[in-house]
Each structure stands twice: as structure tokens, then as C-alpha cells.
């Protein structure tokens, strides 16, 4: 997209976010954890677009939120432009947040229906002291609207008066209003119709060129992510399994999961579809509350080997310049030394849900149950 310099804007190290699963009314006992994000390192360079893909429940949104400290990480640290955010609290953190903004998936529920567009846009500016007098603010608002392609008459209107695509533009204008460096866009186009999706994707690209923004784009649609991103990270069950630039990830996916994901995305071209080789994965995503041992993907992996896969969790290692992969056998798979085999689907199970002995300790599910009929 724009000039990608080598300086790093955001550095994430050993990020972990575990959500406790609680049972019981009185004791509030923690019976387990959902390992939403479980050890992720990544860095985003100034001016680039980093795309994070994965299926639902892989932890990509949680990772995005934890980077902005919207969700408190369990472990790990985030360094934003040289400043460690992990220990930051209160006022300094609030001030810091001006530089990192978020665009959400559903523009209807992320815009207050009772605020006019003007009030939505001014709110952030005011909170960060950018509202310096009526005239300059007015000028700034008109600039913002024209940047995102909305008519200047929009200021007095309310979110329900706009279509989905226009609402997403308001969400983007709101993020831009405080002159951020980083924008985290969580599924920015998935709620939109295809013909409108393209408008918003182009807009995001234009704004990046114009304002020199850095993006973290989180999406499940691989085609969208590949289109918009300079580098792509693929997540599976709370961990990053592969990271490469967006051409490499398409032409030479190294991790078995990435291969399967790539082959599953339908391409709007019958000629391609007819000859394409599909890698169908068996079964479902295992529960993040009870992730498989070793490599998280081994239960569904067609390239699974007898040793290491189920005992040792592979680390993300660099195979080619800029191309990292977390698989013990990546070289062997790449060079064709090991072949794919059939996998039987396994039942996915939450282990805290099945232990019959535990239930007596877990307490009643609700107050009415305690009281009885």
C-alpha cells in the first residue's frame, strides 16, 4: 500500500488472554479457562497493513482488543511506539489511546443511535482536547466527512438514516477524528453487501495513503485480507500458525492449516473451481477451553506424524525471509517428503463440561434451582 518503513509501531510479545469459566452462585468457583489467545508474538511496522485471519473462535478479535488494552491480557506485553502499555493505567493510558483507534464489525451496534453524526465525531476530539473552538472543529468535521465520502449534510443526521456502508464510513470517520497512528479494524466489511464491501475496502486503502496510517485488519474472509494486507498472520486456536507477506501466503502456504484454509475459499471462477484441489478438514475446531496437547492442529491435520505433533507445541520459526511457520514438519511437507493422509473426525469436547464428579462441586446453575419447586 504505502511506504513501509522498517520501524516497528507495535510489538506484541508472549500475549496470553485466558478467560475464566465460572460456576456456582455463592463460591463463584473457577472451573477452567478459555485459552482465547495463548502465546502470540507479532510486530506491526509503521505504515503497513497487517491482516489477521482465522475462523470463528480462533482468538483473532481478542488479540486485537488485548493489543489496545480493551481486554486485559493475562500475560505478555505490548509495546506501542517504544512505550510499554502493559503497566500503563488511568490517564496516561487514556491519552495514549488517541493514537490507536478501532473500527468495529457491526456499524449499527457500534454507533449510539441517539447521537447525531456530529456528536459522534466530536466526542472523541473533545475527550482528547482536539476540539479547539467552533470554527476549527467545524472545518475538521467537514474534512473528515469528505475524506470518508459522506455529504457534509450528514452532520445533523442520526445513524439509522444511513445505509450499512455509510454507517461503516461514519465508524471510520470517528476513528480518524483523533488523528490516530494505528487503526484496528475488526471485520470491517463482513456485515456489508458485496458491492458495498469493495467501496469500503477502497476507502480504507485511500485513507492509508492519505494519512499514513498503520492498519491491523482482522477478518475471516481470506480473500479480503489478502487483498488489503501487506503481511498476513494466520491464527488457529489462540496461536499464530503462519506469518508471511500476502503473496507468499497464497503462493506458498507452508502450514497444513493455511493450506486447507486456502483451498477452502471459493473463487468466483468456474475454471479455477473445477481444477482446484480441495483439502477438506475433518471435524470441527476443538474447544479453546480444552485445546489439544502439542500442536493445536494435530487432531485435524492431514499431515500429522506419529512423533512430536501431539506432545510438543511447535514454535513459530522463520523458514524463508519474512515467512514464519509453526509446524514441526513444514520443510518435509514443502519438499513432499511426507504425504497427506485421511483423518477421522473427532468429537470436540469441553472437558469441564463432562466430568460428572465435578458437577456436585460446581453448585446449582441458578438460584431457582436451589430453592426448588
Amino acid at each position, binding site marked *: 500500500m504505502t511506504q513501509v518503513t522498517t520501524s516497528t509501531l507495535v510489538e506484541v510479545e508472549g500475549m496470553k488472554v485466558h478467560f475464566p469459566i465460572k460456576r456456582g452462585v455463592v463460591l463463584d468457583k473457577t472451573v477452567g479457562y478459555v485459552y482465547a489467545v495463548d502465546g502470540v508474538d507479532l510486530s506491526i511496522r509503521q505504515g503497513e497493513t497487517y491482516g489477521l485471519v482465522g*475462523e*470463528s473462535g480462533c482468538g483473532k478479535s481478542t488479540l486485537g482488543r488485548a493489543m489496545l488494552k480493551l481486554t486485559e491480557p493475562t500475560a505478555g506485553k505490548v509495546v506501542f511506539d517504544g512505550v510499554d502499555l502493559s503497566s500503563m493505567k488511568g490517564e496516561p493510558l487514556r491519552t495514549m489511546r488517541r493514537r490507536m483507534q478501532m473500527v468495529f464489525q457491526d456499524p449499527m451496534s457500534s454507533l449510539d443511535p441517539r447521537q447525531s453524526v456530529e456528536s459522534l465525531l466530536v466526542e472523541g476530539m473533545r475527550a482528547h482536547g482536539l476540539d479547539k473552538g467552533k470554527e476549527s472543529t467545524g472545518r475538521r468535521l467537514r474534512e473528515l466527512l469528505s475524506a470518508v465520502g459522506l455529504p457534509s449534510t450528514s452532520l445533523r443526521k442520526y445513524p439509522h438514516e444511513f445505509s450499512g456502508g455509510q454507517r461503516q464510513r461514519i465508524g471510520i470517520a470517528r476513528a480518524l477524528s483523533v488523528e490516530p497512528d494505528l487503526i484496528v479494524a475488526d471485520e470491517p466489511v463482513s456485515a456489508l*453487501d458485496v458491492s458495498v464491501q*469493495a467501496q469500503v475496502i477502497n476507502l480504507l486503502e485511500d485513507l492509508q495513503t492519505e494519512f499514513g496510517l498503520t492498519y491491523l485488519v482482522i477478518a475471516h474472509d*481470506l480473500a479480503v485480507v489478502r*487483498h488489503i494486507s501487506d503481511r498476513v498472520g494466520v491464527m488457529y486456536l489462540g496461536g499464530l500458525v503462519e506469518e508471511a507477506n500476502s503473496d507468499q501466503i497464497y503462493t506458498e502456504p507452508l502450514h497444513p492449516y493455511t493450506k486447507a*484454509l486456502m483451498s477452502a475459499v471459493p473463487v*468466483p471462477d468456474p475454471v479455477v473451481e473445477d481444477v482446484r484441489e*480441495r483439502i477438506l478438514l475433518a471435524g470441527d475446531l476443538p474447544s479453546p477451553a480444552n485445546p489439544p496437547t502439542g500442536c493445536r492442529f494435530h487432531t485435524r491435520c492431514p499431515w500429522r506424524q506419529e512423533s512430536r505433533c501431539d506432545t510438543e507445541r511447535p514454535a513459530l520459526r522463520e523458514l524463508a525471509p519474512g515467512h514464519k511457520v509453526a509446524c514441526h514438519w513444514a520443510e518435509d511437507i514443502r519438499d513432499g517428503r511426507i504425504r497427506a493422509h485421511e483423518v477421522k473426525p473427532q468429537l470436540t469436547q469441553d472437558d469441564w463440561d463432562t466430568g460428572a464428579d465435578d458437577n456436585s462441586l460446581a453448585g446449582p446453575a441458578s438460584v431457582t434451582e436451589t430453592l426448588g419447586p
Partner: protein
Amino acid sequence: MALLEVRDLSVVFKRKGEEPFTAVDGVSFDVEPGQTVGLVGESGCGKSVTSMAIMGLLAKRGVKVSGSAKFDGTELLTLSDKQMRDRRGQELGMVFQDPLSSLNPVISIGLQVAEVIERHRGLSRKEASVQAAELLDKVGIPDPKRRLSEYPHQLSGGMRQRALIAIALACRPRLLIADEPTTALDVTIQAQILALLAELVKETDTALIMITHDLGVVAGLCDEVNVLYGGRVVERAGRHDLFRVPRHPYTHGLLASIPRLDAPRGERLSPIRGSVADNIPWTQGCAFAPRCPNAIDTCVEVTPAMEPDPVVAGERLLRCHNPVEPADRVEQEILT
């Protein structure tokens, strides 16, 4: 004669004190046994309402359905509720988009599948549940015997969709309508479900109507594609013809606005201007005219008719006054 013949199907919603709204306007298509026909379009194009009308699932009050939908020679639109009930589940099956809201949350999966078999084949509950287990196994649900006694919330999204397909297939319907069957699912699960549907069509010679907004799904699965806009079919062609030479500006625009996984990087998308909501309700002329780069004066005045394509050879119908010129190279290739 085709298995299903839909002719000039229109659905008008009327509400007290409001202008009548035409959701589907003169839709015609045929489906043969073993054929997969796609209805493609964005939200509000009338694709789901078309299928609901065929299945007799629309409310009786405030909705006016006209035209004809003949299934194996029988007119479906004039059947009584009871006659329609006998056919649904038996000869006509339907898979909906959201499996969680189309399954009954308080009835076990086994019973929901067995219910259909009991009702239409007159088997006992015991016999029916044996068959139900076989069906679940066939649609790829692991450990089907145990799943029979489980409830929808205990299954994952993909498994629920499989259960829904099992219910739709319980009596081996001759026509299956799948309304966005994979939209709520992840891509890897979507690939599993699409492979399952394709296999079923091939094995049992079932006719399949695939309703989707995803042109990628259409490209891999459908034999014939109907592109809908504003309640009308605007272009119909075999999938290879349609994707190779899109003629209607809407089809053309849709294809140009999707980021493709296999496209070279850095290629800019060319979106369609405006949005669907811009021209609802339209009264006369082409519904796409306000967004169309090819629009001429006639477009807003006269509703174009569905006619064979005058330029490109092949079985293609087109509803457009000023279609997109096929690129020279492609035209040559097709004409020769």
C-alpha cells in the same frame, strides 16, 4: 418437462396504509433432476422470498403471490395447506441459513429427524430413529447414535447444519432448496458442507436450488445461474458462460467488486456505486438503473424484458437495454 417450472412468479407484500411492495417480480426458471440452479443476489433482491413462495411458506394475509410454480406437473401455488404439508419434507426439502434458529431447541436431534420419517413414511418411532441414525451418519456426523439424544445447542454450527440437511433429506426429496446453507459457517466447514451437497445431488439425482450471495459458491456448484436484482432475474446463463462473459452491468459489477484470492496483489477493486437501498421501491424501468454505469435514458423509463442475448452465442437470457460489451478476445472465442 422440467421437474420444477417456475413461471412469472411475483410476490407483493401489502400492508394497511402502506404502498404495496413488490419483492419478487416475474421470476421464471426451470430445474431438472440432478441439476443445480443458483439464485444469486445481494440482500433484498428477492432470492429468499422466491424460495419461500415455492415452498408455500409465506403468510397468507397481506401477501399476494401470482404466477405459477409447477412441480412434476402439479401447481404448487394453489395447493391447500394440507396438500402442501404432505409434499414438504416428502418431495420438497429445504435447508435454511441459520441452523440454530431453524432447529427446535427443546427437542432432541434424533426426534427432529425421526419426526419427518414417521410423518411421511408411517414408520414407528423405533424404526424411524434407526433410520435417523443412518441419516446422521450419511451426512458425516461422527458417533450418530449418541448424537440422537443430544439437543441443538450441544452441536457445533457445522454439525447443526448437517443435522438440518439430514432432516431435509430424510424422505429423499426430489427437490432440495438450500437458502444460504453455508453463510453462517466458517470456510473450512463451508467446504465440507458444499462437498456434501454436491455428492448428494450426484448420488441421488436430486434437483437443487442453491440460494446464495457468494459468487464463489456458485462458481463451484451450480450448473445454471440466475442473477437477481430488485426482485427480477437480470441475467441467466450456464456458470462457465456467466463468469467468462458477464453481460449485465450488475453481474459485471459484482464480479469486479469481489477481492479474489487468486488475483495479483495491489489490483484495485471497482465497486458498484451506491447501495441496494437507493432505489427501493422502484416503479418502472430497470431497478439497477440508478447505480448502473451503462444506464441510458430508456433504462429509467422502460422495464427491459428478459430476452436471449443478441451478441454472445449460447443459452443466455438477459434483462438489459445496454449490456456490457464483451471484450473482443472473448467474443471471438465464443462465436467461433
